[in-house]
Structures are given as structure tokens and as C-alpha cells.
């Protein structure tokens, strides 16, 4: 009996003493990563520079410099001693026709060199830059599980004030603000660029006829087509997820209201009614609803329109100004321009709790646009009275201000994934 008890107790105690740990707390730190082996050629340096910049921009990686003296290969043990979790190594070798062969390998140093990614590419010299972004995307996705946005682009309006006039241009740059290209230049105001879901077209508002018109321009060819040209406001175009509809704001009947234009048939349908101003529609990723800004409650607030039923529901209650809202791809949060007291900042609201987190702390932020992976928000802000691009991660931890350009940057729009 006693022995039994003792045995029981022993079992009990051994089970009590068995080491089963539960870890619920981690740190929020950048993933330490090393890059090695691409060589010292100009192409290699450029490539590594872009990857390095991308990973740094994301704020999710800590780039550990390779130990000196530089060697083409550093042992895993040394990397491990440097505290690196993973190492990206690669090789650029010239191939035929001025092409380059690029081999990369990503290994898990922490897990004793388990290879995570092995790829081989052949690109032209001019594509090395894009390839670098692509490699960044691959590495990013492999290590974070989130699709990278380093190959996506940003559209924005650049306003250059000249001596006699003001020049407006529709610019498209890499997501890091580099390599901007003008898609359209006008002496009249341009507004509200919006990427089509496939990334091939941009809808925007032009005042070239001294009144607002909504156009769609092909990114590749620059061809345009007019979508709406009603008296009054024609503004704030937004693409439905299937790319078949374009929601617009029209004031043809007096008050600006939401309409949707069927881009195939040309039919138009009014979405919101009443005497309050409704504007800035943004489709949810499932196409079932859209968010818009309305003054129907007295101050501008965000509302949700159910497209099937036409029901409208107020979404924001915190702050005295909420506008330009859009859902994250997973529909769990929405980002918006939010004013608590005086300053306009980028806010993110959790849809389950309604809690709003303010991500930025400058005086006047505007035009937040969400990255297609839902991780970052690009927005325009003012640095020394100049409009510049800035980026903030959705958790608010990573903030990046992009180099200023000659002119003011307005209304950035983040592209969808390409391909």
C-alpha cells in the first residue's frame, strides 16, 4: 500500500518534474541575416545593394556584415558566432548575350545549415535591378512567411511649382521610391491615382479640361480612356477586386455621392443616397462591400456599404476625423487618415475590437495606401513644407521616410502584386 502510494507519488512527482516548457513570450527583433559570396563585381555590388536595401527597408531584418577580411565563403560556424539566423549566398556569372546567371542559396544557419531556398536565374543586365527586388521578395517570404512587396511599385502625383506655372505629373517608382518614371505630365491638377487590380492600368482624376474627369491610363502604353465626365465632381476612383467596376464620386445631382461604373458595359449605378457628402470609396478584397468617407454624421467618418443590401454602417467612432479608409487584405483591420485632436495621422483600426492605433506622429499625414501584403502603409507627409513619401509598418514599428524629390509628392498609391 505504502509502496503503491510511493509509486503513485513517484509517478506523480516525475510527471510534475518532467520538463515540459511553455514559451509564450518572444522578442520583436529584426531577423539577423548575412549576405555573402556574390563577389566584388559592380553588378554583384549593385545587386547586393538592392537586396540589402530592401531587407533593411522592411525593418524585419538586421543585416550582419560579413566578417573581414572578406572571403567568398564564410563558414556557418562563423556566421553562427555572429548571431546570424540565415545566410543568403549567391553568385553572378556572365552568360551569353550580355546576360547574367545568378544563383542564390538561402540557408538556415541556426538550424545547422538547412537549405531554405535555392534558385537560379538568367537575366539581362538591365533586369538585374528587378531581379534584386525579386530575390528580396523570395528571401522575405521564405523567412517571414509574408509575400514580399519589393517588386511592387508606387504611383503618386508629383507637383512641381515652377516660375509661371505648376507642373503635375503622374509618377511611378519602385516601392522604395527609386527609379521614378513619369507616366503623364500636365499643367493642370492630377488627383487620386488608383491601380487596377492587375496593375496594368491606373485610374486618376484630371482637371485638364478645367473640370474634373476620371481617366484610365495604361501603365505600359500610356493610352488613356475617359470614364466619367459629369458636371461637378468626378473623383476618387476605386477599382473593384475583379477589375470590372470602378467606383467613383459624382456630384452631378448636387451632393457628391458614390456611383459604380461597369467598365465593360458602361452602365452606371448610384451606390449611396442622401444629402451628405460621400467620397473616397475603397472596395474590400472580397468585393462584398466598400468603405467610404461620409459627412452624414456631422464630421467626416468612415462608413461601410454592403453592396448586396445597400446597408450602410458607421465604422469609426474614435477621433473627430476619419477618412480614406481601406481594408487590409485579410479584412481584419482598416487603415485610415485619422485625426484625434489637431494632427492628421495614419491610424489602423482593428475591426473586431474597434480599437484605433495611431501609427505616425507627424503633423499632417495624408493619403495612406496599403501595400498588397497588408504589412506596410505608404503615405504622403510633409517635411519642411515639402510633400514626401513615407512608409510605416502596420504594427507601427518600422517607419521610413523616402528621399525628397524636387517637388511635392501627393497621393501615393501602392500597386498590387504583379504577376
Amino acid at each position, binding site marked *: 500500500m505504502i509502496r503503491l502510494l510511493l509509486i503513485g507519488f513517484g509517478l506523480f512527482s516525475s510527471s*510534475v518534474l518532467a520538463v515540459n*516548457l511553455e514559451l509564450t513570450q*518572444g*522578442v520583436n527583433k529584426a531577423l539577423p541575416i548575412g549576405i555573402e559570396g556574390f563577389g566584388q563585381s559592380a553588378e554583384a555590388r549593385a545587386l547586393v545593394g538592392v537586396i540589402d536595401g530592401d531587407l533593411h527597408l522592411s525593418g524585419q531584418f538586421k543585416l550582419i556584415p560579413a566578417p573581414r577580411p572578406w572571403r567568398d565563403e564564410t563558414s556557418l560556424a562563423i556566421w553562427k558566432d555572429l548571431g546570424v539566423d540565415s545566410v543568403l549566398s549567391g553568385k553572378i556569372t556572365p552568360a551569353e548575350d550580355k546576360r547574367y546567371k545568378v544563383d542564390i542559396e538561402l540557408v538556415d544557419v541556426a538550424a545547422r545549415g538547412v537549405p531554405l531556398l535555392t534558385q537560379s536565374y538568367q537575366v539581362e543586365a538591365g533586369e538585374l535591378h528587378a531581379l534584386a527586388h525579386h530575390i528580396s521578395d523570395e528571401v522575405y517570404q521564405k523567412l517571414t512567411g509574408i509575400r514580399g512587396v519589393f517588386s511592387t511599385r508606387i504611383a503618386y502625383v508629383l507637383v512641381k511649382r515652377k516660375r509661371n506655372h505648376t507642373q503635375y505629373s503622374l509618377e511611378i517608382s519602385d516601392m522604395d521610391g527609386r527609379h521614378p518614371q513619369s507616366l503623364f505630365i500636365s499643367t493642370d491638377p492630377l488627383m487620386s491615382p488608383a491601380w487596377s487590380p492587375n496593375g496594368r492600368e491606373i485610374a486618376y482624376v484630371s482637371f485638364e479640361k478645367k473640370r474634373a474627369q476620371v481617366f484610365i491610363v495604361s501603365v505600359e502604353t500610356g493610352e488613356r480612356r475617359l470614364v466619367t465626365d459629369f458636371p461637378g465632381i468626378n473623383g476618387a476612383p476605386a477599382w473593384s477586386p475583379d477589375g470590372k467596376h470602378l467606383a467613383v464620386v459624382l456630384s452631378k445631382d448636387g451632393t457628391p455621392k458614390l456611383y459604380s461604373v461597369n467598365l465593360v458595359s458602361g452602365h452606371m449605378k448610384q451606390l449611396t443616397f442622401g444629402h451628405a457628402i460621400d467620397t473616397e470609396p475603397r472596395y474590400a478584397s472580397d468585393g462584398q462591400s466598400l468603405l467610404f468617407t461620409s459627412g452624414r454624421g456631422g464630421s467626416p467618418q468612415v462608413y461601410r456599404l454592403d453592396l448586396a443590401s445597400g446597408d450602410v454602417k458607421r465604422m469609426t467612432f474614435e477621433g473627430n476625423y476619419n477618412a480614406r479608409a481601406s481594408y487590409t487584405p485579410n479584412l481584419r483591420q482598416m487603415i485610415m487618415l485619422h485625426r484625434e485632436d489637431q494632427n492628421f495621422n495614419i491610424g489602423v483600426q482593428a475591426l473586431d475590437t474597434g480599437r484605433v492605433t495611431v501609427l505616425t506622429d507627424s503633423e499632417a499625414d495624408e493619403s495612406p495606401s496599403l501595400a498588397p501584403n497588408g504589412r506596410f502603409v505608404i503615405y504622403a507627409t510633409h517635411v519642411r513644407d515639402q510633400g514626401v513619401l513615407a512608409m510605416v509598418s502596420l504594427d507601427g514599428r518600422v517607419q521610413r521616410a523616402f528621399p525628397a524629390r524636387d517637388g511635392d509628392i501627393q497621393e501615393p498609391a501602392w500597386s498590387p502584386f504583379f504577376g
Partner: protein
Amino acid sequence: MIYDKSYRVALASAVVLHGLLFLALIIHPESSRRPVLHHEAKRDSTASESKKLDESIKEPKIIHAVSVNSQEVQEAVTRLKTARAEERRVEANRQRQLKNEADAARRLRITEQQRVQQLKAEQARLAEKRRQDLAENKKLLQDMNKQKEAEEKRILAMKQEQAAMRKQQEAEAAKLAKLKQEEKEREAREKEQARLEAEREEVANRARVAGIVDKYKALILGAISRQWILPDQVNSQLSSRFKIRLAPNGGVLDVDLIRSSGDPILDRSAQAAIYKASPLPVPEDPAAFNLFREITLTVRPENVRG
């Protein structure tokens, strides 16, 4: 006894017979002179028996006597004389015969006496023998009794002795039992004490080990936690479980993902953290370390630090 009685009767009858014979021999002349008397006496002696007969024959006898008396007295005297001679001869014969008979009787008596003597002797002998036998018997009996008594005494004594012995034995057994009991109790006490002590020690040891274990559990968790870079936007509802094998110096030998969260990034982040935390803090105490040879770790990205 029975013989004794028969002899006695025989002897008495023999003596009486001889006495009568002797008496008869002595009084013979008178009886010859008065035979009638004798006859009468004889008759008288039997009178009571034959009264009736006497009365029936009285008459004829008297008549006869009257007729004979006068004539034939001489004849009668002669006859009486011859008769008397005859009687004398007969008497002589009888005397002889008697003498013979007496001799014979004497002889018989002598033999009888001898026999009696013998008998007596025999009887005496027998009596003696019986007496002796009796005595012997008695003695024997007495002896037997004595013996019996002695035996009984002895038995009693033995019994007493046995009882005493038994008592003693019992006492000794009791004493032994008591001693045994005491020994048992002492042993039990000692055992219990040892057990208690062992238990105390065990408890203390366990507590010590448990203390060590708790301490190192916390240390290990801290070490891994510091290395665990939580993936962005990780679902805090997820969890993965690992089996970790440790070397005595705390070095991580193996990390086995035994239950994936379904999120490879979360799984890998935790795995990297475990490897990077190597060597983990483990107790030097071998008993305590044994518990850390293989540990399981469940990670659940609930909290973020820093």
C-alpha cells in the same frame, strides 16, 4: 472354603457314628436282657410315626401271650438260652465284626485322620498359601497401590513439573514473543524512522531537485525567449511543440518539431531560437540534469517583449 465345609460335615458324621458304635458296644448286656424294651423303645421312638399301626395290632398280641405263657415257658427258656448263645455268638461275631469294623474304622479313621491331617495340612497349607497369597496379593496390592500412588505422585509431580515447565516455557515463550514483539516494534520503528528519514530526504531531494528544475526551467525559458524573434502578424492562437535533446553541458543536440503550428515561419522561428539559445542553462546536479536530457517545449506567440 467349600472343601473345608464338606470335610467338616464328613468328619462330624464320622465322629458321631463312631461314638454311637462305641456306646452300643458298652451297653450291650442290658439291651440283651431287655430286648422288648429295646424293641418298645424302638417302637416308642417310632411311636409317633406308627400310632395307628400299634392300635390295629394290639389286640391279637395280647391273646397270643395268654395262650403261650403256661405251657411253653421252658421251651422258651431254652430257646432263650440258645438264643442267648446264639446271641452271644452273634455278639462275638458282631464283636469281632465290630472290632474289625472298629479296626477298619480306626484304620479308616487313621487314614481319615491322616487324610484330614493331610487335608488340614493341605488346608493349612492352602490357607497359608492363601494367606500368603492374600498377603502377597495384599502386599502386591499394597505395592501396586504404593506403586500406583508413587506413580500417581510421580505423574502428578511430572505433571506439576510439566505444568511448571510448560509455565516456564510459556513464560519463556511469552518473554520471547515479547522480546520478538519488542524487536519487531523496534525494527518497525527503525524502519519507519528510516522510511521517514528516506522520505524526508526524498522530499528534500525532490524539493531540491524540483527547486533546481524550476530554476532551470525558468532559465531555459528565458534563454530561448530572448532568442525567439516572433514573426510579424503571427497568429497568437497557434502553437508548436518541440522535443529538445540536451547534452550535459546544455548543448542542444536535436530539435524535433513534434507538432507543427501549421505556420512554417512560426515553427522555424522557435526552432532557430532553441538552437541559438544553445548551450542552454542546465543543472549540474546529475539527478536534476537527467530530467533535462529530453525536454518538450510548446511555443505560443502570445506576448512580445521589447
